[in-house]
C-alpha cells in the first residue's frame, strides 16, 4: 500500500483510489485466467508460436526487467506524484463503463486470437495474426490504463515524466547490453581469478589436480568442471549489490553514511570468496562422493544457501556496528518476528541443505521435520493465545481447499515419476528406516507444515504487510493489499501457484472470521490430511510425496 500512499492521500476525496484497486484486481484476475488457460510449451524445441516465444524469453525478459526497474528507480516516484497531482486536479472522474465495455470487447478478441496463435504452428499462424494478437493485447491493456488515469490527465503526466522515463529506459537498455558482454569480454576479468583461487585451494589437498585456464576447467582426482559465466563470480556480486543497494535505500534513515557505502565492496568481496568455497566444495563432492549429486543437487542449492548466509551476515554487521548504523544494536534483545517465521525458515533451510546432498530421494528429509518441531517447541509459550480449538467452519474450509487442490494441482508426469521413485526407494530400505522416514513425512505434512506456514503467512505476514510494528496490528485485521499479497506469496511457494493462492486466500478468510490463527491451522491440517488420504487411497502419490 505504501507505493500508492501519496497518490491515495492526494486523491482521498476522489473516486480514483477505489477505482485503481478495482482495476488492479480485474487485471490480476484476467492475468490468472489467461495464464491458466494458455501455457507455453515445456521445451524450447518446436515450431509453434509458443515455442518461438519461449526461445525469445531469455533475451526479452531480462531486457524488460532491466528497463522497467531502471524506469521505476529513475521516474517511479515522479510518475506517482504526477498521477496524484493530475487526478487531484480533476473535479470528477469520467464514467468507467465505456472503458470497461470496450475492454470486455477487446478481451474477448484477445482470448480468441491467443487460442489461435498459441495452438497453431508458427508458419500457419502467420505474421498478420501474430501482429493482430500483439495489437489486441496492447489495446486491451491500454483501455485498462485509460480507465485508471483518464486520457486528459494522462497526457499531462506523460509530458512531465517523459524525461525521467526516457533516461530510465536508456540506463535499463545499457545495463541489459552490458550484461550480455559478461559471456565474452568480461569473463576473464573475474573468472580467471576464481579459477586460479579454486585451483590454489585444491592444490593444498592431497590428490591430483587439473587446471586449464584457456578451457576454463579445473578438477581434482579425475573430476573436472568448467567454470561457466554464472560461477565466475559476476552473478553473486551482481545479486549482492542489488540486495545491499535495496537495503541501503530502505534503511537509509538508520544507517550512517558514507560509512555504510563500504558494505558494497565488502559484500562483493565476501560473496566472491564464498563462490570460490562453493566451487571447491562442489569439486570435492564430485570427486569423493558423486559427480551427479555435485552438479545437479549441490550446485544450485549451495549457491542460494551461501548467498543467503552472506546476505544475513552483512545485515547483522550493518546493524551491529556504529560505523554503519546510527542505532547499533546492543547485546541484549530479542527478535519479534522469530517465533512466527523461524519454524518455517528452518524447515526450508534444513530441507535445502539435506537436498543439496541427495539425488531424488532425500534420506535426511526427516531432519527438517525434527528441527522445525524443535523451533515450535522452543517458542511454544508465544502461541498460547492464538485460539486453538474446534471449528466446523475451518474444517469445511479445509475440505473446500482440498476439492480445489485436486484439479488445480494435479501432479504432472515428472512429479508422479518422482513420487514413484521415492516409494520404490522406500520399499528397498530396511523396514525400520522406511517406517521412520514415512512417519516423519506424515508428521511434517499433517502437523508441521500447517503450523509453520500459517504462523508465517497468516499470523505474521498478514499483519506485517499492514504495519512495520506488526505486533500492534490485531490478528485478523483485514486490508485488501495484505490479503492479496500474502495469498500470492503463499501461492508462489507451491508448485501450482494458483492452487496455493486460492488456498492461502481461503485460510486467510477463515482467520478473519474469528481472528484466530488456530482456525487457519485447523483448515490447513484438514486439507493436508485429506490430500495424504487421497494420494494413498488412489495410489496417486504425486499429491503427497
Amino acid at each position, binding site marked *: 500500500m505504501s507505493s500508492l500512499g501519496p497518490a491515495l492521500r492526494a486523491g482521498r476525496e476522489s473516486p480514483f483510489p477505489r477505482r485503481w484497486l478495482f482495476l488492479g484486481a480485474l487485471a490480476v484476475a484476467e492475468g490468472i485466467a489467461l495464464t491458466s488457460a494458455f501455457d507455453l510449451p515445456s521445451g524450447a524445441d518446436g515450431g509453434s508460436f509458443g515455442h518461438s516465444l519461449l526461445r525469445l524469453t531469455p533475451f526479452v525478459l531480462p531486457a524488460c526487467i532491466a528497463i522497467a526497474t531502471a524506469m521505476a528507480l529513475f521516474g517511479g516516484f515522479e510518475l506517482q506524484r504526477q498521477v496524484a497531482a493530475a487526478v487531484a486536479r480533476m473535479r470528477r472522474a469520467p464514467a468507467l463503463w465505456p472503458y470497461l465495455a470496450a475492454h470486455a470487447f477487446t478481451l474477448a478478441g484477445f482470448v480468441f486470437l491467443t487460442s489461435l496463435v498459441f495452438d497453431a504452428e508458427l508458419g500457419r499462424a502467420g505474421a498478420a495474426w501474430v501482429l493482430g494478437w500483439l495489437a489486441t493485447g496492447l489495446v486491451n491493456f491500454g483501455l485498462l490504463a485509460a480507465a485508471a488515469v483518464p486520457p486528459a490527465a494522462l497526457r499531462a503526466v506523460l509530458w512531465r515524466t517523459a524525461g525521467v522515463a526516457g533516461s530510465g529506459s536508456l540506463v535499463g537498455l545499457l545495463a541489459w547490453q*552490458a550484461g550480455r558482454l*559478461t559471456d565474452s569480454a568480461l569473463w576473464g576479468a573475474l573468472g580467471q581469478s576464481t579459477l586460479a583461487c579454486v585451483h590454489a585451494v585444491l592444490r593444498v589437498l592431497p590428490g591430483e589436480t587439473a587446471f586449464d585456464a584457456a578451457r576454463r576447467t579445473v578438477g581434482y582426482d579425475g573430476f573436472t568442471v*568448467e567454470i561457466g*559465466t554464472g560461477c565466475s563470480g559476476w552473478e553473486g556480486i551482481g545479486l549482492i549489490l542489488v540486495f545491499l*543497494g535495496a537495503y541501503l535505500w530502505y534503511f537509509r534513515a538508520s544507517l550512517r*553514511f558514507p560509512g555504510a557505502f563500504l558494505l558494497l565492496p565488502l559484500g562483493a568481496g565476501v560473496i566472491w570468496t564464498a563462490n570460490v568455497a562453493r566451487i571447491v566444495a562442489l569439486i570435492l563432492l564430485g570427486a569423493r562422493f558423486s559427480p551427479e549429486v555435485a552438479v545437479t543437487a549441490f550446485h544450485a542449492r549451495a549457491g542460494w544457501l551461501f548467498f543467503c548466509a552472506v546476505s544475513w551476515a552483512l*545485515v547483522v554487521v550493518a546493524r551491529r556496528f556504529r560505523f554503519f548504523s546510527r542505532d547499533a544494536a546492543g547485546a541484549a534483545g530479542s*527478535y519479534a518476528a522469530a517465533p512466527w517465521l523461524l519454524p518455517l525458515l528452518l524447515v526450508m533451510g534444513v530441507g535445502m541443505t539435506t537436498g543439496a546432498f541427495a539425488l531424488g530421494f532425500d534420506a535426511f528429509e526427516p531432519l527438517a521435520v525434527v528441527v522445525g518441531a524443535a523451533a515450535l517447541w522452543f517458542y511454544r509459550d508465544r502461541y498460547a493465545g492464538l485460539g486453538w480449538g474446534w471449528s466446523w467452519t475451518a474444517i469445511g474450509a479445509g475440505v473446500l481447499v482440498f476439492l480445489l487442490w485436486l484439479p488445480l494441482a494435479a501432479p504432472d508426469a515428472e512429479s508422479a515419476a518422482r513420487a514413484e521413485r521415492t516409494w520404490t526407494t522406500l520399499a528397498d530400505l530396511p523396514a525400520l528406516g522406511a517406517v521412520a522416514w514415512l512417519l516423519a513425512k506424515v508428521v511434517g505434512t499433517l502437523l508441521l507444515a500447517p503450523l509453520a506456514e500459517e504462523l508465517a503467512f497468516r499470523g505474521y505476514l498478514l499483519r506485517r504487510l499492514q504495519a512495520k510494528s506488526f505486533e500492534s496490528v490485531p490478528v485478523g485485521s483485514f486490508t485488501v493489499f495484505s490479503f492479496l499479497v500474502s495469498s500470492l506469496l503463499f501461492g508462489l511457494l507451491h508448485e501450482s501457484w494458483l492452487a496455493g493462492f486460492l488456498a492461502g486466500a481461503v485460510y486467510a478468510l477463515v482467520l478473519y472470521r474469528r481472528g484466530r490463527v488456530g482456525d487457519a491451522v485447523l483448515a490447513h491440517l484438514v486439507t493436508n490430511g485429506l490430500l495424504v488420504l487421497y494420494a494413498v487411497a488412489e495410489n496417486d502419490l504425486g499429491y503427497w510425496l
Partner: protein
Amino acid sequence: MPHAQRLARRARRAVLATSLALAWLAAPGAAQIGGTTVQPVPEIDSGLTARALALLFGGLLILTSRRELKKSA
C-alpha cells in the same frame, strides 16, 4: 528541499542504478547456470528459487525485527 538533501537523493539513486547495472552483468549467467563437463546445463528450478528467496527475505525480516530489552531501573 535543501541542496544537500537533493544531492544525497541523487547519490542514492546512482548507487541503486549502478547496482542494477552490475546485477545485469551477471544476467546471462543466470540463464545458463552450470556448464560442467559432467552433465548438460540444468534448467533453473523455479521452485528452488522461490524457496531460496523466501528464505532470504524471511531471514531479513527476522534480523530487522530486533528490539532492545529495556533496562530495568
